[in-house]
């Protein structure tokens, strides 16, 4: 069976359609708003993956034997066939322009036979088969800079490094964010840059950012997570609400049942609306997702929570959730200095104390979270004490704790 897949892969050729020039007028010719079904093609799904495999990847599909990270960002793969492939990983800001992609294409055409891939964390990987090309490629990548001086294609993100920050839309595109995404990521990565291009850490450190509690990404399972939060209950636009929201759905949307239907009189007119029991609101924003007339965003209220210690892999310890260690940091565009400083402090404290192979969360659990707070000099607050549905399981129901500076003997 596996052979069949191998065979299929070998037989898949690059679709000729891509070599045909783009026709900017075709769509208008084919699409007839009066007869929308005319010429419509649907449900064809994505192009078959195998056509984009470079020849050496195709040939060695399923035959890889081993790999070696020859330097940060460069992984050498060896096949049972004896073939060798170097993957060169470069960081990107994810939010990119077509010109940037064209530059990627220039490089891929020059060194990689026109093939290129993106990783699951928004890095790009170029593949070459010999060392000479590898050197040339690396030099080339290094030379490409934006006018402001930033690297276009920094090499790194492998091994015990900080790889690219998985992130979200922020103020660039979303309607519910508490914070920006791309700007914070740029600020943090500028500061952690040396850790992207090196293997100095005890283990890989996955940093993620989400701009609201919806957490588009894997913020909830990241070594270090930067999370946009609201802290003010929704505004309620009484005069508009009944026209733009389905009240029963809004009421049902609140996980805490804090929303109740209500009727108000505005200029003598009765309006159906809702009321929020503000004491019970935990600022999750789910009501706003359901109802445009209940915005939460607020420049004074919004900010950033830091969660740490999550992981995904099953290596040594099972996957874990990130834990909220700092409930609020100020929202400081354009450079978010407090967040940047805090993330770096956590990262470097971890780097200094953890053992080889030990992920951030494993380290914190080994030394005890009280030690984590002490070493990272993070003030502990009541906000880190869970009071949601599974809270009990986080209580300290043993005498297994250490006497850190937090303990004032009574």
């Amino acid at each position, binding site marked *: 069976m596996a052979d069949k897949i191998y065979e299929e892969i070998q037989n898949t050729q690059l679709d000729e359609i891509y070599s045909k020039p783009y026709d900017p007028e075709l769509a208008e010719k084919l699409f007839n708003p009066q007869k929308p079904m005319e010429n419509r093609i*649907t449900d064809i799904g994505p192009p078959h993956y195998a056509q984009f495999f470079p020849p050496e990847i195709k040939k060695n599909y399923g035959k890889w034997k081993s790999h070696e990270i020859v330097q940060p960002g460069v992984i050498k793969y060896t096949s049972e066939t004896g073939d060798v492939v170097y993957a060169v990983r470069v960081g990107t800001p*994810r939010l990119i322009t077509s010109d940037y992609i064209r530059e990627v294409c220039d490089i891929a055409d020059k060194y990689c036979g026109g093939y290129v891939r993106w990783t699951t964390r928004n890095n790009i990987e170029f593949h070459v088969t010999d060392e000479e090309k590898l050197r040339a490629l690396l030099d080339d990548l290094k030379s490409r800079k934006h006018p402001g001086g930033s690297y276009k294609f920094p090499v790194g993100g492998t091994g015990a490094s900080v790889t690219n920050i998985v992130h979200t839309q922020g103020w660039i595109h979303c309607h519910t964010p508490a914070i920006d995404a791309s700007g914070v990521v740029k600020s943090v990565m500028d500061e952690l840059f040396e850790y992207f291009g090196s293997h100095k850490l005890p283990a890989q450190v996955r940093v993620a950012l989400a701009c609201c509690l919806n957490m588009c990404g894997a913020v909830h399972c990241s070594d270090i997570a930067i999370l946009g939060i609201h802290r003010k209950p929704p505004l309620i636009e009484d005069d508009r609400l009944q026209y733009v929201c389905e009240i029963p759905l809004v009421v049902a949307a609140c996980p805490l049942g804090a929303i109740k239907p209500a009727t108000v009189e505005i200029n003598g007119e009765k309006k159906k609306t809702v009321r929020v029991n503000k004491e019970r609101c935990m600022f999750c924003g789910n009501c706003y997702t359901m109802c445009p007339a209940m915005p939460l965003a607020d420049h004074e209220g919004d900010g950033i929570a830091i969660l740490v210690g999550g992981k995904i892999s*099953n290596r040594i310890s099972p996957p874990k959730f990130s834990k909220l260690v700092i409930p609020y940091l100020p929202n400081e565009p354009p450079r978010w200095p407090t967040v940047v400083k805090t993330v770096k402090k956590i990262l470097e404290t971890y780097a200094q104390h953890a053992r080889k*192979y030990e992920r951030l969360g494993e380290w914190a659990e080994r030394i005890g979270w009280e030690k984590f707070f002490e070493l990272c000099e993070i003030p502990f607050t009541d906000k880190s004490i869970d009071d949601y549905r599974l809270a009990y399981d986080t209580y300290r129901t043993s005498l297994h704790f250490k006497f850190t500076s937090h303990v004032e003997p009574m």
Partner: protein
Amino acid sequence: MADIKKHDTPTVDELKSGPWPSFVDDIYSYAEKHQKQSCFDLMGQLELSYKHKETHWKHGGIVGVFGYGGGVIGRYSDQQEKFPAIWAFHTIRVNQPASKWYHTSLLRKLCEMWDHRGSGLFNFHGSTGDAVLLGTVTEQLEPVFFDLTHQFNMDLGGSGSNLRTPSCCVGKARCEWSCLDTQAICYDLTMTYQDELHRPAFPYKFKFKISGCPNDCVAAIARADCSIIGTWIDDIQIDQEAVRAYVGGELKPNAGAHSDRDWGPFDIQKEVIDLCPTQCMYWDEKEKKLYINNKECNRCMHCINVMPEALRPGKETGATILMGAKAPILEGAQLSTVIVPFMRMEPPYDTLKELIDKVWDFWMENGKNRERVGEIMQRVGLNRFITDILGLKPIPQHVREPRSNPYVFWKEEEVPGGWERDLAEFRKRHPA
């Protein structure tokens, strides 16, 4: 393009410096070169957000292409006068090729299309995995769709209450550890469920992610309602020669992942044996031989990660199927839960699909609005989900530990005599 209006963006401009690739520089370079008003406006609005510390995008807006219920996220600026070029700025989620390999012919053509019909901005990629075209107006949606289907043989990805674009790790294409044909599975599921992907009929979103091994490089266990993760059921393959090479310092532990710090010489006892979570390994220092008690191994990958030249997953491979991962809204985040510890994965993946069908049937009938599969699993109880809904045998692999409370829901048929009892008889035995 008539007159281009540029905005002062002193705050945003501060993001041009520093070593990490600057999206601001990229966008401005592009905008200048192509004289793109929408890009200038986007930066202008971002500047305003940096000042106000609030987003300037309006709430939602349902737009799309005919016959599809997803794939497009409608977006409108609340600063329509100031930034007319982004008054509408919808994103289009384009279903990526599995594991995101591309040929430049596709990419260059896509760039041309998007310069023409949109902002020229992309997210490569979205968190779910789509190639995201970032920002266009409503009138361009159908043309983009026609372009994609006619000129790219490409299609839209998911959004809304439907199947979301499946995604996978690089797998056997370039990884020696993959126990699955991740791309083949991803592609097959995507093609099989085109209807579910494009026409929302679910209570809420549903995601598939496929990782080739327990390292889980696509973060399936944290982000997919159905997480398909490769594993093996036989023994770890050992090359004792290579083990000795690691012990002798000829090979770099963990493939060189720790190269920039002096962690001292490799110590197999400390770095592998002692860290094995099941303590099922033994290094015979005399014999210079590594033993693994594979029956006790839980396939965490650590030893393999440390000594990739020496150790490899077994040969009898398959997938663990887990379900229910999701972000915190509403009930709190969930990781996926083991449903089938070992499933062989060969096309056409009928066993998997039968399982999926059962889940969807049940969820579509019983799921509340915006209730994820993970949440309904909790609501009905994992035990009933496994037995009554999936028709599987409950096994200890389903839980980390047995329940500690004694609150068992017995069923009437399980109890001799049933639940109907004769009160008079009882009181005959037990006068009140």
